[in-house]
């Protein structure tokens, strides 16, 4: 079986900075990978390359065996990749329900012509309702997405990502800005997503949670992979230790 995602020698340069410098890794279907690294390590850039928002200078990105390096985000989403944004981007003028219904109707919006021929939203609305309940947003369906507090918007991002029926989900800091309780429920949701068979790639600053839920850890520093494998083994590696965590943080992460 081919990997769910394969990154092969990907690199990109912004002016004088080599943001991502020859990164290669593959993620098995059903795996749960945490992508970490200090600020400026190239995590967000790498995620943007995987999501199709940036074209790498060299290297290839493959989804379920097929090369998508030249494809835009929308095409990749249609091939089974879902993503959430680090800075939430709901359709603020639409209701929570409509945000998710639109995502659930991904087969309706394949092209404008097909979209023009369909009006009925019943099936999509039902599915969207279930997903909204699953992420813990039940009761907010009729509210405008722009009126939700940040914690709920973060969940809406996850709901929208799930609604496109993905095989792989890329979560870019889904816990950032959430308080303890909110973060705990969000982690719960993410674990359930993984249990339902979806491959998860999680970019996160919250090391404690990453260590707790990921099965594999990738550490990025200066645009290169400096650690890869079992979370505890990786965190114990002195190279990772020096580059990223620093003494105090390791004990914190292992706690």
């Amino acid at each position: 079986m081919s990997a769910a995602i394969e990154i092969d020698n990907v690199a990109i340069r912004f002016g004088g900075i080599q943001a991502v410098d020859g990164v290669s890794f593959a993620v098995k279907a059903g795996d749960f990978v945490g992508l970490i690294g200090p600020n400026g390590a190239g995590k967000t850039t790498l995620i943007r390359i995987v999501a199709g928002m940036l074209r790498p200078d060299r290297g290839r990105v493959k989804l379920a065996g097929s090369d998508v390096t030249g494809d835009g985000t929308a095409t990749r989403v249609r091939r089974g990749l879902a993503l959430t944004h680090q800075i939430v981007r709901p359709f603020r003028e639409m209701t929570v329900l409509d945000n998710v219904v639109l995502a659930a109707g991904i087969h309706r919006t394949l092209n404008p012509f097909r979209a023009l021929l369909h009006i009925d939203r019943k099936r999509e609305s039902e599915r969207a309702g279930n997903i909204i309940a699953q992420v813990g947003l039940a009761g907010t369906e009729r509210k405008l997405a722009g009126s939700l507090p940040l914690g709920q918007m973060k969940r809406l991002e996850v709901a929208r990502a799930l609604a496109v029926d993905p095989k792989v989900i890329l979560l870019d800091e889904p816990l950032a800005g959430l308080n303890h309780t909110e973060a705990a429920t969000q982690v719960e949701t993410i674990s359930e997503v993984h249990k339902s068979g979806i491959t998860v790639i999680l970019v996160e600053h919250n090391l404690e949670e990453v260590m707790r839920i990921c099965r594999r850890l990738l550490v990025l520093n200066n645009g290169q992979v400096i650690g890869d494998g079992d979370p505890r083994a990786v965190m114990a590696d002195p190279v990772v230790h020096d580059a990223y965590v620093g003494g105090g943080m390791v004990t914190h992460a292992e706690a």
Partner: protein
Amino acid sequence: MSAYEVSIVSIIGINVILAVSLNMISGFCGQISLGHGAFFGAGAYAAALAMVSTGSVTLALCVALITGSILGIIVGFASLRVRTDFLAVTTIGVNFLFIGFVRKQAWLGGEMGISAIPATGLGAAGNMVMILLFACATVALSFYISRSWMGFAFRAVGEDEGAAATVGISSAAYKLAAFGIGTALAGLAGGLYTFFTQFITADAFDFILSVMLMAMVVIGGIGSTWGVVVAAIGLTLLPEAMRFVNDYRLLIFGGLLVLVIRLAPGGLAAMAHGLFLRVKRS
């Protein structure tokens, strides 16, 4: 009906088609176009040439529709590269380019325009009925699109292209579709205008007209088909009903545009909705 009333109703019908079609591009899909007059003009000239050479009404309308749409899709490609204010400026440029081009073309009659365009044979009242039927069809199409998945996707693209991509919607395809449909209808309106006047010059399709159409969309309530229809009718009748409005047309329309944007960004549609809610509550 007097000849005057017939001509007013005909102009209202044409303006309704123009404003509603512009609303599909700028209201539904969020692509601000200030060059709608150019597509209207392209359709009018195409229909005039078709009428002069063949005299077939059906052919003239088809040619007008297709010419408007082709030009619109070409400009639509610009919308894939430039956004918001820059797109508005680009479309203004398209309008001026159109006028400048037409004025210098001998085969389009140059400054003198095209005159002695054969009549449709329906008479003024018959033309008016045809215009009104097309206007109703345009309004019906607008309501349908708004309810369909296409309208749903348009709203997503208009609001946030990045977010639209994350739900698998290709903004490029939808923007081209919006321009293609909206400008095809503008072209159609151009064909109807040609039948109505039987004489066209480039001046009828200038930037001022494009701004007036945008004023109808904004005052009516950007994105609301009903609001835009009401504004198109009202703003066409206003200069007829009040002499001084006609004399100070640009000043008054410009002033209204500024007032609406500043005080009631949702236009007539939002005001009516607000009033409805208040009445319901009391």
